[in-house]
Structure formats: structure tokens, C-alpha cells
């Protein structure tokens, strides 16, 4: 897509803001609308936009498919691991109150970690699926 200069320039302007907005949605999900799922999807669409405009090869150079596959699992493990930690303190699965001394801030930390896990898994899944679809032979 070397000839579509309008698309390229617009995308160059848009992509940083899309990614930034995704991070905002991710980490501001406690206070405003949004959360891991939305953030992951927005991040993935920003990245996929990059892949569309500048070519899959360039996108792969930024974020190799191998990395997205690992991230795919890391997100789930982060979520599950946060849940499992509370076992060691004699509490139920996914009971975050025990993560810190203060149960409220423990909940806060737990929700933060869990949302991060959701975001990582969702964006990695979307990007992985995009890579696979885009690299199918015609």
C-alpha cells in the first residue's frame, strides 16, 4: 500500500492515539466505562490498522506472531494465577481481598491484575487471528 499516501499519513496520526486510548480504557476501567476486554479489542484494532496500511511483514517485525501466541497464554495465566494466589491464604478462588493487608486495596489490585490479563489475552487473540487470516495463501 505504498501509493495511498492519504491513508498512510492519516493512519500514522491515528495509531498512536488509538493505542493510547486503549491503554487509557485499560487502566481507567475502574473509574470510567471500559475494562480489559474493550481495551484489548481497541489495542488490537489499532495494531491491525497498522498491519493493514503498512503491510503484514512490518507488523510482524513490530510484534512477532510467536510473541502474540505467548501473550495469549500469559493473559489467561495471569487471571488464573491471581485467582490461585488466594488459595495459599486459605480463601476461595478469585477472592482478591487477601492479596494485600487491606482488603479494599487487595480487591483493587486483584481487579487490576485480572483486567490486565483479560486485556492481554483479548488483544493477543485478535492479533493472532488477524495474522493467520492475512497470511493465508490465495
Amino acid at each position, binding site marked *: 500500500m505504498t501509493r495511498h499516501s492519504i491513508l498512510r499519513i492519516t493512519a500514522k496520526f491515528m495509531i498512536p492515539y488509538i493505542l493510547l486510548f486503549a491503554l487509557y480504557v485499560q487502566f481507567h476501567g475502574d473509574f470510567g466505562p471500559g*475494562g480489559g476486554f474493550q481495551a484489548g*479489542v481497541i489495542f488490537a484494532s489499532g495494531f491491525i490498522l497498522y498491519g493493514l496500511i503498512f503491510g*503484514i511483514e512490518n507488523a510482524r517485525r513490530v510484534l*512477532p506472531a510467536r510473541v502474540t501466541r505467548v501473550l495469549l497464554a500469559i493473559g489467561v495465566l495471569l487471571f488464573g494465577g491471581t*485467582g490461585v494466589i488466594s488459595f495459599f491464604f486459605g480463601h476461595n478462588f478469585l477472592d482478591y481481598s487477601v492479596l494485600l493487608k487491606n482488603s479494599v486495596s487487595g*480487591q483493587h489490585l486483584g481487579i487490576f491484575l485480572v483486567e490486565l*490479563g483479560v486485556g492481554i489475552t483479548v488483544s493477543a487473540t485478535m492479533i493472532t487471528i488477524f*495474522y493467520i487470516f492475512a497470511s493465508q495463501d*490465495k
Partner: protein
Amino acid sequence: MALTAYAVARTRNLFAVVILSGIFSFLAAVLYVVLNAVDVAFTEAAVGAGISTLLMLATLSLTTDKERAKHQIKFIPLLIVSATGLLLIFGTLDMPFYGDPNAPTNLHVAPLYISDSMKQTGIPNIVTSVLASYRGYDTFGEVVVIFTAGIGVLALLGHGKNRTRPGKNRNVNLEG
């Protein structure tokens, strides 16, 4: 929205169908904003209009954008669909009015979440605290579903390591 849905059902050119379903998703996102469900609207706009449209286009570029013509109307499926639709509409007659504070769903655990969420989690956004903490199991299940979907696509289509390396594969033209 109804008009878009009708157009999707009638159009034969699949490229137009994909774009129309993207428009449908955007309209749905607007509807969710009107209903104050901003979270869902985010998701609908990004997944429904963005990513799924894109994946459909990628699929079209691998296959073809012409639907095989089939014009005759089949009566038994039409009958079943209409009957189900009528039954569903009949079911809504019994439902409480949208947003009714006395509706059974709003009286079960919702007041507890609204009154205790701030004290127990310190998070002002109740949607987040319900999703991540009170209903953590559900959300975990959802994440595992997404993970499984990614793994499934990988297993079905992502064969061969060399394909995923830069420079070794051809760039598919996604313009359809």
C-alpha cells in the same frame, strides 16, 4: 437497523454484505450508547464493526465475493422462523418495562452491588467491580473461551512455522 438487516439478507454481493453488517454494528453501538451501556458500545464498535468486518474481508479475499444464486423461498424454515419470532414477541409482553426498578432482576443482587461495591472494592465503576470481582468466575470463563477460540484458529489454519516469519509469505491484498 431493520433496513440494514433487510439489505444484508437481500444483497447478493458479499462485499456489500460485509460493509452493510459493519454499518449494522455501528448502529447497534449507537443504540447501546443511547441505552447507557457504554462498555458494550465500545465492544460492539471495535469488534462488530472493526475486527469482524476485517476478518470477513480477509476471508472474501481468499474465497469469492459472489453468493451462489438461490432464489426460491423455502416455506417450512420461513414458518418456523416466523413462529419463533411471534413466540418471542409474545414472551416480551409479560416482561417488566425496560429500566423498571421493581423488576425481579433489579431486586436480586443488584442493590447489594450498588450499596456495597464502593465499600468492598473501592472502585467507583460498579460494572468493573461486578465483572472482575463478584462475577470473577464468569469473566474467567469468558477469557478462557476467547483463549480457546484463538487456539482453535491457530490449530486449524496456523500450520507451519515458516509461514509466520517475516518475508517468507506473500502479503494478501485485503482490499477485497
